[in-house]
């Protein structure tokens, strides 16, 4: 799995106070509003990977992430006419994606998803198997570390996980997360600190 050019490896922590600017220059949002196929294709290409990564990290299950990604883009398609072409669509997408994930968390499907874990549903196992097949020890170790980090993330309660993912991977500020989640900033900060502290303990126990 290669890092995305827009992925977290490019980011140096939450010093970015607003959602990372994404190249929307090539996107004709007006045409997206009209559901022009070419514009929709470009829109999809621009945001799919980011949205999939977000919902996967929030849900921790590949099948559910696929369901959620489908739901997100269904809502985008249905609400395309509401898109403001003068504004960055990312906050809108983030709101849709987090709302979809919250719906999943509330549903029985989320709990059920954790009952039908296959190789691909087990974070990192697939990568581990890939690496084993390829053989390089370095890859295997990196995959194992990714798995442990993902395990630690999934061990968090959903509200804590949401704050960490939005902040660390989406670069959102506390005020933005607060606006998105309906909390006040202080509560978001508290959740963030608490989530990282819990993750730290989890990772220490796991030997990282």
């Amino acid at each position, binding site marked *: 799995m290669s890092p995305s050019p827009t992925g977290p490896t490019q980011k140096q922590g939450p010093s970015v106070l607003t959602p990372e600017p994404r190249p929307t220059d090539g996107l004709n949002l007006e045409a997206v509003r009209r559901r022009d196929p070419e514009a929709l294709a470009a829109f999809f290409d621009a945001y799919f990977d980011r949205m999939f990564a977000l919902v*996967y990290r929030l849900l921790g299950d590949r099948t559910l992430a696929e369901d959620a990604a489908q739901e997100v883009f269904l809502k985008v398609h249905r609400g395309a006419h509401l898109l403001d072409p003068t504004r960055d669509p990312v906050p809108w997408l983030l709101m849709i994606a987090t709302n979809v994930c919250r719906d999943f968390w509330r549903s029985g499907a989320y709990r059920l998803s954790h009952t039908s874990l296959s190789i691909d549903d087990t974070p990192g196992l697939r990568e581990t198997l890939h690496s084993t097949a390829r053989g390089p020890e370095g890859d295997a170790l990196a995959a194992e570390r990714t798995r442990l980090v993902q395990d630690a993330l999934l061990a968090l309660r959903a509200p804590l996980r949401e704050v960490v993912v939005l902040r660390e991977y989406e670069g959102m500020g506390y005020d933005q997360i607060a606006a998105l989640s309906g909390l006040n900033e202080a509560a978001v900060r508290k959740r963030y600190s608490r989530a990282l502290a819990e993750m730290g303990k989890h990772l220490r126990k796991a030997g990282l």
Partner: protein
Amino acid sequence: MNDRPDDRLTDEAERARRLLLEAPPPRAATAFRDRLKDEFVSGAIEVSGTREARGRARRKTVPIRGLASRRRRAPVWIAASLAAAAAITIVIGTLNQGQKWMVTGVRGEGVVAVDGDTVPLSDRAALNRLIVPGAEVKIPDGVEIDLVSGGVMALQLTRRTDLTIPPPPTRWINRRMEMHVRYGDTRMTTGPDFHGTRLNVFTPEASVEVVGTTLAVIVQTNGTCVCVLEGAARVGRMTPNGPTDIQPVRSGRLRFVWKEDRPPSSDHMRDMERIRLAQFRDAQRPWLEGTPAPD
């Protein structure tokens, strides 16, 4: 915008944050991405969740041509013999028939697609009428249906399952079943009357031979996972020439047959799938052990 209270993070938390940032982003399967893009661009995404994308021609039945259509009259004794043989065949065939599938449980809300028609989940009578051998059933997200065929076996069709309902195994003669699962999570458990039956489950990638067990067949975009709770199943890779590389999968193990050309992977079953299968088996046991099913 206020930010960076991170100076309050402990070293351990700071390290966790660093590790988070180093983790590569998860990527979607190419096939899924391409399909979703097609649906998004074409607008099919608006209907794919609620309506069948493709219609299917109903299976046409070919009438059996009776002897009466023939102009030449057969001698009476030949006709009588044939009639007697036909009657015996019909009687044996009828007695040999397995018990029909019966819907014993539904969970969730919405509709399921049966042979291209949408059926409300709340309409149990319609489900029982339409879910018959040969019916192609698609289950949407958040819906589960349990089916039982007498004391033989129970099926649980869960999210995004797309399969053809198999004929129940016959009672004495030719006790074999074939089931084709195209996608989704399907759980199955066998009952006391399954004894002697041979069940083959086919997915796009895998062939599963079952001789009495509780297992899950999970078909995903990148392959098929077979998880065996009890008993054993034989799992192989499907090729145009039939299954190859068949290996036994014993209780508590899984075998993943990749869609791509690579050797199948084996591992221990996930605990939660173990629990789900056990719950399913226990819930279906009364049906399989003789509790009469309501019509």
